[in-house]
């Protein structure tokens, strides 16, 4: 069942990716999350759900669920690790490049996995902000 790879460097995983795939961090659902967001869809073959617990604008816990490949699971792990303890503002500044380099790099073909985790985080933060706007005024940048 041929998966149409054609360039070698496009598919080789780093040791970090394999390690996080084997023992993913922060997987699962959260009791009483502040916010939960889902991105991607099963038809396209990858989907991620991320839950954040935010206290005083600080992310105190992050968990994710993944329907996706090894890169997907590894990026879910690393993103949730990276944002824990950060303020929402700081978390929002997290870039795809940072995510990828925290994994020792991602095969080019798998960059969309990093993008997906990034989008899921952004969506969760956005939802959190929207919720809060409804309450009190919050800085938007």
């Amino acid at each position, binding site marked *: *069942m*041929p*998966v*149409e*790879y054609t360039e070698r460097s496009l*598919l080789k995983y780093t040791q970090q990716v*394999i390690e996080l*795939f*084997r023992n*993913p961090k922060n*997987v*699962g659902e959260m009791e009483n999350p502040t916010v939960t967001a*889902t991105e991607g*869809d*099963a*038809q*396209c*073959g*990858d*989907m*991620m*759900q991320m839950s954040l617990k935010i206290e005083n604008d600080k992310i105190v816990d992050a968990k994710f*669920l*993944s*329907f*996706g*490949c*090894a890169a*997907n*699971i590894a990026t879910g792990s690393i993103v949730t690790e990276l944002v824990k303890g950060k303020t929402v503002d700081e978390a929002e500044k997290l870039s795809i490049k940072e995510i990828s380099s925290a994994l020792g790099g991602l095969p080019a*073909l*798998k960059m*969309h996995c990093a993008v997906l985790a990034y989008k899921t985080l952004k969506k969760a933060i956005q939802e959190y902000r929207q919720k809060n706007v409804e309450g009190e005024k919050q800085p938007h940048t």
Partner: protein
Amino acid sequence: MKVYLDNGTTTQVAEEVIDAMLPYFTEKFGHPIFVYSLGQEAADAVEKTQEIIAKTINAKPGEIIFTSGATESNDLAIRGIAYANREKGNHIITTRVENPSVLRVCEKLERDGFRIDYLDVDPQGFVNLDQLQNLINEKTILVSVMHVNDEIGTIEPIKEIGKILREQKHKIYFHVNAAASYARVPIDVERMSIDAMSISAHKIHGPKGVGALYLRENTPIEPITYGYISLFKLKPGTENVPAIVGFGKAAELAFDGFEKNVEHMRKLRDKLMAGIEEKIQHVMLHGPRGDKRSPANVNYSFKYVEGESVLLHLDLNGISVATGSACSTRKLEPSHVLTAIGVKPEVAHGAIRFTLSRYNTAEEIEYVLEVLPRVIDNLRKISPIKPGAF
């Protein structure tokens, strides 16, 4: 424990095959087109292999051409016959479920001005014979249908297709890609009315880098590559003698006790299928059951999980399989075969193919049936998709 269940992709070279090849690397390394004794020895070995392979498919030795693999055999047969018969017509019929090595060639022919029709298949992967009848017209020069589907194990009705083609008013050449069926399902080019057929050594415990094209005598065909002289006009370049010898030995091993080998694979197949269906919920079999399925192929979707993750977890446990998932392709499209049989993409992404060889054992299957349910269970635990979602 190491369990290799990706024999449809490539196989381990058998020890006997290595032993057969070794002398042709060292003492018998001559070039078969040369008249001195080293060359003649090499040419004799090539001829002997033609005989061995011919016998396994009921062909004549001179009808066997050695190539670098099934990819090249498919390309040579399809484009070669198409170009040589261009004046008679530009219409070719194939199927939606062919291997890329056929589909890419057909796409090239479309760019060259040929018209290609792709036969539909039913939910088990069988081509539609009525549709074939209806598509045939006076411009049809070639039909190419795979024997066994490499992904889902469907055994296509080659004999019936051969009969339909034989009964036409004008000659329509019949090519069969038998890369996935050779040494697994009986083949008889006479009974099946096949004009050209592709096989590959590395799928039957022979070496990589060598395949064969069976080409019926007097079939009009043009070369598709050009170059240095060879024993085979259609395949220029120095013959890969050691690999050809290894191919012959691999065929001998597979066909000595063919029935027994096939029965062994069939038993393992049925054991694996029964085990999966017993131990894991929310699974979907792809391809038919029973005699119309390759004895070497098992393919299930495990819903709510993604194939590459399953594949890598199995790999971490020493088990090699293939996946229909396309998480990793550029296009993010699942297997064209699963799509053609109507599998929904979200289900196709969780497809895992297990392909057997005569060297696999019952213990190996038991090990897989121990590991696999755990892997699926763990991945479902971290999946955002809940059972019943599709």
